[in-house]
C-alpha cells in the first residue's frame, strides 16, 4: 500500500514497516520539531477517544500531511500505553476502528480485502458484495446479539456467509477494534513518560472527569437486596472489572431492563467498567432492551444460566423458581419495606 493508504489504516503491519523503513526513530518522534504536527495529531486522537473535541479529518492530500497522519498513530498508542488504563485502551481501539470503517466505506474493494487479510479475516469478494468464512463471522460478531446477525439468518454456503458491503464493513470494524486492543499496551519507559509529561496529565484529567460522570450513585429505584445470587454476582464481578462471559453481560443487562431500569441508567451502572463498556456499548444495550431492535430480550432461564456456568448455585428461593426474574418478584413480596409499592419494579 502507498503512504496515502497507510495513513488511513495505520494499524496495519505494513504501516509500522513503512515507518521503520523511513528511519524515523522513537526518539525523533518524541522530540524533533519536525514531528510536532504528528505529536499534536496523536494527542487529538486520544482526546477523540474520550469524546473531547470534534473528529479530526483523517484524509490528507499532501505527502507531508500523510506522514504526520501515519505517525500520529504510534504517538497515540504510546500515550494510551503510558496511561495504562483499560477503559481508555478500549475506547481508543473502538474510536480508531470506527474511523477505519468510515474510511473503508469510501475506499475500494481491494482496500477492504487488503485490510481484512491482515487481521486476519477470511473475507473474499463475491459478485456485488463479499463473503466471509463462517468461523470469522461468528468470531467477529459474537457481541452482536440481535436476530439479523444470527448465523441462521445468513446465507451460508460451502463455509461462507455472503455479506453486503455495509455489513462486511461492520464486521471488519469489530475485527479492527480487537486487533488494535490486542496490540496494547506497548512497553513504555521513563523517557517517554517524561517527554509527554504535560500531555499525559492533561489526558489523565479528562479520563478522570469522564469516569466521574459514570459513577452511578446508586442503581435508582431497584433494590439490590432482591437480586438473585446470579445477578448479584454478575454485577459485583463487572464492577470489580473481572472478566465476565458474554452470556453473563447479556443476562445482567436484560435483567436490569426487566426490573425497570432505563437504558441510560443501565449504561451508567456499567459506564465506568471498561470491559463492559467496550463490549456492550450503549448501542448493544439498546438492542438487548428492544429500544432499537424489534426484539426485547428476556434474561435467560435458570437452566440456561446453569448450562453457561453463571448460576452460582441456587439458594432457598431459587429452588422454587425457573427464572431469575421470579426471584426478584418473590423477594419483593416476601418483605416489602413500608412505603415501597410492588409496582416500583415490574
Amino acid at each position, binding site marked *: 500500500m502507498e503512504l496515502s493508504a497507510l495513513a488511513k489504516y495505520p494499524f496495519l503491519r505494513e504501516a509500522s514497516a513503512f515507518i521503520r523503513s523511513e528511519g524515523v526513530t522513537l526518539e525523533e518522534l518524541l522530540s524533533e520539531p519536525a514531528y510536532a504536527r504528528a505529536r499534536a495529531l496523536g494527542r487529538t486522537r486520544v482526546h477523540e477517544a474520550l469524546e473531547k473535541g470534534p473528529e479530526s479529518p483523517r484524509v490528507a492530500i499532501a505527502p507531508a500531511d500523510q506522514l504526520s497522519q501515519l505517525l500520529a498513530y504510534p504517538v497515540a498508542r504510546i500515550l494510551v500505553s503510558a496511561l495504562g488504563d483499560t477503559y481508555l485502551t478500549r475506547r481508543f481501539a473502538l474510536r480508531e476502528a470506527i474511523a477505519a470503517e468510515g474510511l473503508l466505506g469510501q475506499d475500494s474493494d481491494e482496500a477492504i480485502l487488503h485490510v481484512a487479510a491482515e487481521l486476519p479475516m477470511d473475507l473474499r469478494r463475491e459478485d456485488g458484495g463479499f463473503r466471509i468464512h*463462517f*468461523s470469522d463471522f461468528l468470531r467477529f460478531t459474537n457481541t452482536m446479539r440481535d*436476530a*439479523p446477525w*444470527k*448465523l*441462521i*439468518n445468513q446465507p*451460508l454456503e460451502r463455509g461462507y456467509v455472503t455479506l453486503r458491503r455495509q455489513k462486511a464493513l461492520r464486521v471488519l470494524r469489530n475485527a479492527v477494534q480487537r486487533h488494535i486492543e490486542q496490540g496494547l499496551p506497548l512497553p513504555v519507559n521513563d523517557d517517554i513518560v517524561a517527554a509527554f509529561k504535560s500531555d499525559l496529565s492533561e489526558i489523565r484529567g479528562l479520563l478522570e472527569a469522564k469516569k466521574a460522570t459514570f459513577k452511578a450513585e446508586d442503581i435508582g429505584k431497584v433494590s439490590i437486596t432482591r437480586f438473585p445470587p446470579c445477578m448479584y454476582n454478575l454485577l459485583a464481578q463487572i464492577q470489580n472489572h473481572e472478566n465476565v*462471559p458474554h452470556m453473563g453481560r447479556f443476562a445482567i443487562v436484560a435483567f436490569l431492563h426487566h426490573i425497570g431500569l432505563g437504558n441510560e441508567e443501565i449504561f451508567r451502572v456499567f459506564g465506568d467498567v471498561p470491559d463492559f463498556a467496550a463490549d456492550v456499548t450503549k448501542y448493544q444495550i439498546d438492542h438487548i432492551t428492544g429500544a432499537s431492535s424489534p426484539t426485547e430480550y428476556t434474561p435467560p432461564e435458570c437452566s440456561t444460566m446453569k448450562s453457561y456456568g453463571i448460576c452460582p448455585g441456587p439458594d432457598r428461593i431459587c429452588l422454587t423458581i425457573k427464572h431469575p426474574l421470579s426471584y426478584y418478584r418473590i423477594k419483593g413480596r416476601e418483605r416489602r419495606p413500608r412505603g415501597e409499592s410492588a409496582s416500583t419494579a415490574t
Partner: protein
Amino acid sequence: MASMAAGMAVADPAKEATTRFLRSQFHRYYECTKPTLPDRFGRREFGFMFWTPGIVQRHLGFSKEEELKDFLVSRVPTHAYYSSAYYDHPNAPTMEEKGWLGADLVFDLDADHLPKAASMSYPEMLEAIRLKIVHLYDDFLQSDFGFDPKSMRLVFSGGRGYHIHVFDERVWSLGSHERREIVDYVTGKGLEVGSVFRESAFDRKDFQGHTRVKTRLVAPTSEDPGWRGKIMRGVNGLAAKLEGLSPNEAIKFLTSFEGVTDADASNLYENLFKPRATKPRIIRGIDRLREGQIESLSDRSRDLIIRLVKELQPVRDEAQAGVSLEGIVQRGETDEPVTSDIKRLIRMPSSLHGKTGLQVVTLSRGAIDDFRPLRDAVPKTWTEDRIRVNLKNKITMEIRGEVFNLAPGVNDVPQYLAIFLAARGLATVVPEA
C-alpha cells in the same frame, strides 16, 4: 478378609458371574486391539467408568499409545471417553489449571431423544438416528458449513447414537456463544421469516406530497443458500405431499402437528388448492407458490407452512436435546467438581460400550449407508463359543446375521450374543457349578 467373604455371600452370584464374564471378555478385547488415537492425543483429557456403577475416573492424560493401552488392559473400563477440548495440562484437576487451548466441534445424536423411541425396536431407533446423522453430515456440515470430509469423523457410539467430530482447526478456538450459534443453525432456532422472504417494492405512488410504496414478499428459490433454500425446498415438498393426499387425509396430516387447529388446516389447504382463476387455465395457490409467489398465501397460512417445514427438518432439537453440541467448555467457565459429569467427554472410538459390548466404530461417509450396528459393530474378538445364560424374557433378535428366537430361562447361546444380552441387562450368565 472374613468380612469381604461375608459380603460376597450376600451378593447375587449370577450377577457376580455376569460381571466377571463381561470383564474378562473386555479384557481380552483390549489386549488384542490397538486403540484409535484422536489427533492431538496428548492434549486430551481421558475419563473412564468401571464395573461398579458411579465410579468415574477423570483428569487423566496420556502421552504415549502404550500408556493408554496398558491402562485399558489393566483397568478394563466399561466406558472410555476423551475430551473434545485440548488442554495445556489435560490431567490437572480443575479447568483453570488445565488451560483450555481449543476444542473440536462434536455433534451427538442419540435415540433417547427420539419422540417415539419408546415404541421402537433397537434396530429401528438406530436406523432413525442414522438417517438424521447423514442429513446433518450432508446437508448442514458439508454443504452449508463447508467442512471437508477429511476433517470430519463419523462415529457409531456403540449404544444408541452416532456422533460427528469436526476437527477443522478454524473451529478450535470458537467460544461457547459461537458454538451455540452453530447448534441454533442446525436445529433451526431463531430463524426469522423476514430473512427468508425479502420485501421488494413493486409499486410507487406520489400522492399529495406523500410517497406510498407497495411492497410484496419475494420468496427465495430452492437453490438459495442456507435456510432460505431449505425452507423453500421444504415448502414445495410439503405442498407436494399434501397434493397427493385426499382433502380429508391432508387435513388430518396437518392437524397431527401440535397446536394446529382444524380451521388453520383447512385454511391452508384452501389457500393452496382452491382454484383462484379458471381462465385461461386453472390456477391454484400451489401453482403460484411454485412460481415463487409466496403472497398467494394468507399471512397466517404462510407462517403455518413455514412452521411445519421447520418442524419437519430432521435435525431438530427434540426435547431440547436431540442435537447437543459438546466441547463448549471455555477456559475458566467452570471449575466446579465435575467428577460425575462426563457430558463434556466423548466416547473413544475403538473402545467398547459397556451397556452393549459393541465397539465404538469410526465410519467413512460411504460406509455409514450400509452400516448396521448389530452386524458391523460386534467385535471380531467375540467368538461363537456356547455360553449358558439365563434370560428374563423371550428374545427375538438378529445379530451378526443370525436370527435368534429364545425362550425365557436357561439357553446356550454364542458368546457374541451372550455379551450383548448380558451387557444390556437382558440376561445373566449362569455361574459354573
